[in-house]
Structure formats: C-alpha cells, structure tokens
C-alpha cells in the first residue's frame, strides 16, 4: 500500500533517485553522525577542538579516501566553527589553482585571493599596499595596462582573482608569476599576516578569529618531472611557510602522501594528519556489524524522510520503498561502509525497477553491476595480494597494495576494542569477496601455506 503522498509515483521515484546523487553532499538536514562506527572519528574533536583550544594559530592536514564523506565532514566542521564564532573561509582549490601543475606559490595566492574576497577591511589594506609597491612588475600578469591609481578600490581587490584566473589558464604566466612570487614570498606572507591580524582586530570582541579551509588540494597530481616531487616541495620543503600564517589553516593533503614513508616528516612538520575512515559494516571476525549497517540505514532514512516523513514509517519503509528489510540491509552491507558506493548501489537498484518497491532482484542486479566495475579495476595479477590481505587483515604498505587501497578494492576500518585500544584493520571490499578469482586465490594461498 502506498502512503497518501501529494505526487505521482513517477515523481516520487525521481525524488528518491535524486536524493542519492553520488556527487552531492547530503541534502540539508540529512547529515548523520557516524563517529561511533568510524572508530570514534569525529571531525569536531580531531580538527575542530585543536582550533578552539589553541591560543596560537594552528595548521592541520586532513585526508581520506575518495567518496567516504570528506567534504561532507569539512562542511560540518565549518558549521561548528561558525557557531563558535569563527570567520571561516572555505574554498575549493580547483577554482584557483591549476592542480595538475601546482606549486606552493599557487596555494599561497589562492589563500590570499579567498581571504581578500571574504573579508572587507575598514582600514588600510596591507595586501593592496603590497600589490601597489610591486605593480609595475605584476601588471602584465593581471593582463592590464592600467595604472594603479586609476583603479577603483573594488577593481584593486579584484586583481587577486584576476591573477589567479589568468595563472590557471596560461601556463607561461604561471611560471613567470611563480618566479616573481617566490622572490617576494616573505613580503607577501608578511602582508597577508598583517591583513589577517588587522581583520581579526577589527572583528567584534565576541568573534574568535579566522580559519582557512582549503578543500580539494588532495587532488593535486604528483609531478616529479623536475626531479623533485611537487608534493614534497609543497608539503615538506615549504611547511614552515604553509604553517606560517597568522590564522588557523586546514589543508587537505593527497592520501598517497599519508601512505608513503614521507608521513613521518609530515607528522614532524604538522602533527599527525587526520584520515577519515570507512563506516565499519563488518567486524574483524568477518561478521556483519549491525551498528554500522544501522548507521547507513539511518543515512538512507534521513533522505527519505526529507521527501516525505511517512516513507520511513516501518509499514512503508520495508514494504513500499524496499520490498523487505533484508534488501535494505544487504545494500548497506555491500557498500563496504563507503558512502558513495552506497549511493551508486541505491541509484542502480532504482534503475532496475519500473515502480516501487526496490526489490531483492533489483538490488542484486545493482550489486552485480558494481562488481563489474571492481572486476575491471583489479588487474589480472592482483588476486593473490587481495587474498593475502583478506587473511592477514593487515595493510602491508606495498605500492601495489596502496593502489588497491586507493581504488577501494581494499578498505580500512577502525574501532576501539574492549580494552579501549584503537584498532585499525584492512580487508577486501565486500563486493570483491564474491569473485571466483578471489576464491581461487584464497584456495591457492591455503595450499601454499600448507
């Protein structure tokens, strides 16, 4: 029986389908806190409290696997900090930085641009003074012939955006700008810091200061063509400058860096980087973890609830929307605790039904289709490695294992055991377990060991 909803069934299916877009953060009011199934990982505690408790500016690194909810968590943090009275400048790096060819100077300029855009100073702007004193040398990089004094104030402020935009579009300019910026980095940082200090001084007493959050920097492509890695150049060699701003900063960092031996140097320079783990849908012993599965169900229900509260009432949820509680549970379990995979499984299941409910058959088809993607992602010679990890539940840190971790054939979970020890463990994605090649590799591993 359908609940009495003020839209046609076609519209309703469209609504449900759209609630699970793999590329959108959760719709408003549907965020679910998953701390207790992510090894008590909590962005507020891991990153937020450091800022709140510190008298000094902090600089923190943040990373996580693709599609586990990184940006969702960052947006949560933004809300938390704003409530606490901070001025949060959040930006997506790809708009200001050409990520495939990024260097430190580009990131500095991007931070500068976003600060200038977000915060209006009442008094003299030290950044404009900085720009003015270098105008002759910077003019051609902003692609204008106009003299400084002929520019109106908002035009002067807009120059930072114009510069980042030009640099992104024109590689030759990028090189040239970096050269000039590198020479005057100390003076730019000094100007930026005066800007920040002035801005914080101008704030009302109850306001707490500025936090810059630079998202999507983790998508910088590693480039070793100059003989040095640009990752090292940015995060390690320039770490003093990166953490030298007079406000709190959170930079996203490519996950490959965290999983490489360089992580110790990162830790020395910034403190331990934070990685968002998967939702633990199964236990170390391989059993279904009901707590984790329930969290994922809650995520689904919140989104359904937003469409119509009646959809999540027991008589409709596993009768009208899903054909049974098993179907809903199975989709959650097969996601491996990975948010985006869960979204994809749900959309796929809906593709295979003409009308509600989402049937066990449709869910199975969605699972099989998702398996095809995983199968393609696994190169022919990787099955033994997957079998080994499945047996040992340990991530061995090898390059090939890292690739498998990055394309999510391997997943990492963490939890606190009975004696309150943090446990981190690794396993193959549940979708991988069903493959014949995987089962064969397990058998072979068994006989090799015997």
């Amino acid at each position, binding site marked *: 029986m359908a609940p009495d909803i003020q839209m046609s069934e076609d519209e309703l299916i469209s609504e449900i389908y759209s609630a699970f877009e793999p590329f959108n953060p959760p719709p408003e009011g549907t965020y679910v806190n998953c701390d207790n199934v992510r090894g008590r990982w909590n962005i507020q505690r891991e990153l937020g409290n450091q800022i709140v408790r510190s008298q000094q500016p902090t600089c923190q690194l943040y990373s996580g696997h693709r599609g586990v909810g990184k940006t969702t968590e960052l947006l949560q943090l933004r809300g938390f900090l704003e409530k606490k009275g901070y001025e949060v400048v959040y930006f997506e790096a790809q708009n200001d930085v050409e990520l495939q060819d990024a260097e430190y100077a580009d990131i500095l300029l991007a931070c500068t641009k976003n600060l200038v855009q977000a915060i209006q100073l009442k008094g003299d702007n030290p950044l404009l003074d900085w720009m003015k004193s270098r105008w002759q040398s910077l003019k051609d990089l902003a692609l204008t012939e106009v003299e400084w004094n002929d520019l109106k104030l908002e035009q002067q402020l807009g120059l930072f955006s114009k510069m980042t935009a030009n640099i992104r579009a024109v590689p030759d300019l990028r090189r040239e700008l970096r050269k000039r910026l590198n020479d005057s980095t100390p003076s730019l940082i000094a100007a930026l810091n005066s800007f920040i200090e002035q801005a914080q001084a101008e704030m009302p007493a109850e306001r707490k200061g500025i936090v810059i959050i630079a998202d999507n920097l983790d*998508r910088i492509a590693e480039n070793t063509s100059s003989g040095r890695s640009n990752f090292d150049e940015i995060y390690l060699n320039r770490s003093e400058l990166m953490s030298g701003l007079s406000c709190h900063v959170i930079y996203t960092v490519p996950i490959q860096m965290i999983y490489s031996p360089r992580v110790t140097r990162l830790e020395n320079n910034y403190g331990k980087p934070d990685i968002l783990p998967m939702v633990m849908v199964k236990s170390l012993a391989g059993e279904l973890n009901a707590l984790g599965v329930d969290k994922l169900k809650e995520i689904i229900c919140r989104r359904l609830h937003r469409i119509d509260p009646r959809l999540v009432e027991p008589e409709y949820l596993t009768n009208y929307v899903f054909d049974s509680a*098993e179907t809903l549970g199975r989709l959650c379990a097969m996601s491996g605790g990975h948010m985006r995979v869960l979204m994809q499984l749900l959309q796929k299941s809906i593709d295979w039904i003409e009308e509600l409910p989402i049937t066990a058959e449709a869910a199975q088809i969605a699972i099989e289709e998702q398996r095809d993607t995983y199968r393609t992602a696994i190169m*022919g010679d990787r099955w033994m490695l997957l079998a080994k990890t499945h047996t040992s539940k340990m991530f061995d840190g090898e390059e090939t294992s890292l690739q498998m971790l990055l394309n999510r054939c391997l997943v990492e979970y963490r939890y606190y055991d009975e004696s309150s020890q943090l446990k981190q463990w690794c396993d193959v994605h549940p979708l991988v377990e069903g493959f014949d090649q995987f089962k064969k590799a397990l058998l072979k591993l068994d006989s090799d060991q015997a």
Partner: protein
Amino acid sequence: MSTSNESIEIEPLPSENELKKEQSADVKTMAQSIVENQSANQSGMERAARDRINSHTDLYRSLVRALKRRRGFGVLFLQCTPAKGQEIFLQLQTDLPQKQIGRLTLTEQIENLKVLIETRADLDTLNVLFIEGIEHSLSPYIESEIGHNDYYKLEVLPPILDHLNLHRENFRNQFRHLCLVFVVPPFALKYFMYRAVDFFSWHSGIWTFSPPEEELTKETVIVLDVRYSEYLALSDKERVEKILNLRDLTDQKNQPDEKRSLLLIELAWVLCAAQDFESALGCCEEAISLQSDNEDAWYAKGVALSALGRNEEAILAYDATLSIKANYHEAYYNKGGDLFDIGREEEAIAAYDAALAIKPDYHKAHSNKGNALSALGRTEEAIAVYNVALAIESDDYETHNNKGNALSALGRTEEALAVYDVAIKIASDYHEAYYNKGCGLSDLGRHKEAIAAYDTALSIRPDYHEAYYNKACSYALSLQLDNAVTFLEKAIILDGINKYIETAKTDSDFDAIRDRPEFQSLIAQYEQKQHSEERSLEP
C-alpha cells in the same frame, strides 16, 4: 523481435562437458583445477541478475528509466561500440520524447571538454548530452612498452582526464541541468577508472552493451597447429601424463636453459588445450625468464592472456613477439582480436592489415577486419572486406552470416536473405543463419516463411528461446492469437528468467493482440509467478 546473431569462427576448443568426463582417481586432483566450473557456486539469484544485465533489451530499459528519472546533472557511461552508441542515441530520441538529447561527436584529440559544452548554442535547451569519441583523446597516450605490464599507468596522463578530474565540481555547478553520457570503448572506460578516478567516482552508472557472445569468443591462432590439435584430442589421463612428463624433463638439473624454455612453451600449449590458462601463463613466464628473446614464448603468453581476458597485457605480449620476429602474422592477427575486445577497432583494423601485408590470403584476418568495420558503423566497407574473405574461402559460412547481418543493417534485406541461404547451403545445421533469415523475412512482412525459418532453427536447437520469441512475434503480427500466446509462453519457460514478460509488455509486435484476455492473462500469470519466486528467494 530480438536482434540478429553474429558469429566469428571459433577454434574447436574442448567444451567443459567433454573435459568433465569420467576422471580416474589418480588424475582427479590435477583435473579438478582444469575443469573448475566457474558458475558452480553462483546462487540462482546472482545468475538471474547476470542474465538481466546481459540482456540488451533489459539493460536498455534500465538506461531509459535512469535518464527519464534524472532531474539534472549526472555522469553516465555507456560501454559499447561506436555503432551501438549511435543506435542507442537514435532509439532514445523515440523513447524519451520528453527529454532533449544532444550529441557531441569528437573526431580528434581535445584537452578541454568544458569549453566545448559551454559554447554550444543549444546548451540551455538540452537535458542529456551524448559525448562520443572521447577515446581519440586517450589513445595517443597509450604506448606499449615491451614487458611493461601497466597499460594505463604510464607516466603520461592524457590532459583530458586531468581536466575532467580537476574540474568535476565545475561541471556539476555549471551544467546543473545536464546529464553527460559518455559513450566509451572498454579501454577508455578503464582509462577513466585508473587515471581520472575523482571524476569517474561521480558516475551514476555504467551500462555495458557487449557484442553478442559469439563475437567475443574469437579464434586464437595457435602456431603449433598440428601438435595443438593432438593436445586437444588427449584424454584427461593422457593429458596429465603428458604434463607430468614435460614437467619432469623441464626439472632435470642438467637441462640447458634453451631446451628448458622450449619444453615450457610446449607445456603451456598442453595446458591451453586443457583450458587451464592460468597455469599456461605461469609456464610462459618461466620460459621468458630463461630466454627473454624467444618469440614463441611471448606469443604463447599472449594467447594465454587473451584467453584470460587480460587483453591489454596480451597486446603487449604480442608486441614483444613482433619486436623479436617482425613477420609473425599470427601475433598481428591475435593482437587484432584483443584490440577489438577493448574497443580499439581502428587499431584492430591496422593489426589485421599488418597480418594481411605478410599473408594476403589470410581470410580470417579479412573476415575479422570486416567485423571491426561493422562495429564502427562502416558497414559498406565491411561488406567489401567480407567479400574479399569469401573470395579466398568461399565455404566460410560464418563470414557469409556476418555479411548477411551487415546487409540487413543497411536495410538490404533481400540480398541478406540470399546470403543467409548460401551459409545454410554450406552448413545445413547452422541454426544462427536460419534464425537471422527468419528475422529478415519478418522485416519484409513474410511471416509465414519467417515462421518456417524459425522452425528449422528450432529443429536444430530445441532450446533456442530467442527463436520461440520471434516466432511468437510473427504469429502476433499475422493475428494468430493462440499460436502467439503458446510460443511466447514457450520462450518464457525455456529462458527461465522471465525477461520476455517485460519485453513483450512493450514490444510493438504484440500491439494487435495486446488487449486480448489470453495475452493479458499469460503476462499476469508469469508476473505473479515471478513475484512469488522473488519472495521465496529471500534469505
């Protein structure tokens, strides 16, 4: 009506059943690994799901639903040949009149897709945009390196993938109203998966329309023609003895490396004949480690990899073969097959041409080249090439059949019928040709003859449910209600997974009898049955 059946000549490899024949106790362990039945531990539900995914009709319907329900931005992938992509695009124009579907066909390399979409005059009116030919921006970056296993992991990153990866948010924010459908060959999809991970992970689905099964089982040319057919004829016991014998010889301490690698290649062929390609591959690798410039070892490795579906690695192995022995035409031929499988039809054609430059009368190379041309939608050229193949080997009934299908695709149905007849004359039990002939006859409205053709196909292959289904269509079109219902039911029962219920509900062939109670009750009966089966399957 279901679509026509294509086929490619298949090397007579032993069927699983033959291999599973009685096994004596002492060879049991050995044989077990050889005959392992891939689907044995698949549950019925998994199998049913796979059948639905493999059915082009069902898959297409799920695509229609996905596009119909989507409200705005989205990233979808269609993995198929360019010709199939066009076919789907045209079909969607009819089936989704409520959506404006545009098309962006790329014929050369690009680095910025966003700007191409931004500048379209029809941008604001579109709901869906098909993007075809993105593979032209990827293939220049695939350079095979001898012995290098990482086909897609070279240092170079195609700029277009970088662009998509870095700007995915901008695509979403700027094209809020637009669903992007990438039509890609298999190699391009893998390239996305490995090198544009961030963009790819935003997709809402991949629809894979693979060519018919027959086309995929391409023949692999085995260089040791004579011995290989001997190996095929071995009984399980003889095979195990042969394997042990070769192993013993290989393991002898005083065996020189050169001799040892020859033995290993030999062993690889025995294992290939037993369809144990994993072990065969191991032997080839051993042989190569002993003698890296042995072209036969590389070639055998290529064959094993092809059979395992590891096409990219197979291509590299054939390239290695050819770098040692440039006129190894079998390597070109097999390389063509692997390129075809991953959707690089142009390169496949080049490989067949290279094989033909060495051996101009290689009719199978001509014939497969024809198939690659068909996949590209270059149907007229394909027909010309089939004709060349047939001029060399006029008895090649499968090439006749494929030529018939190409003619049908051009609407030259009468000619196609004549060609199917030629195929039938050569191979009187070739049921695909009868089936295709039936399809052609019903296209011409000659339902009575069509039914006769389907009947012949059914007399050869009694479980041919596609033929039953089409026969039911023909009866429906000639307004013979009872027969239509009877044979539709037959098709449903034989197929066993109920896909024909869904198909029949919308197939216009049944329009004339759709409202009749007999038809309605048949559909209702099986829908109900399907429903109760689903219930009972739940854990």
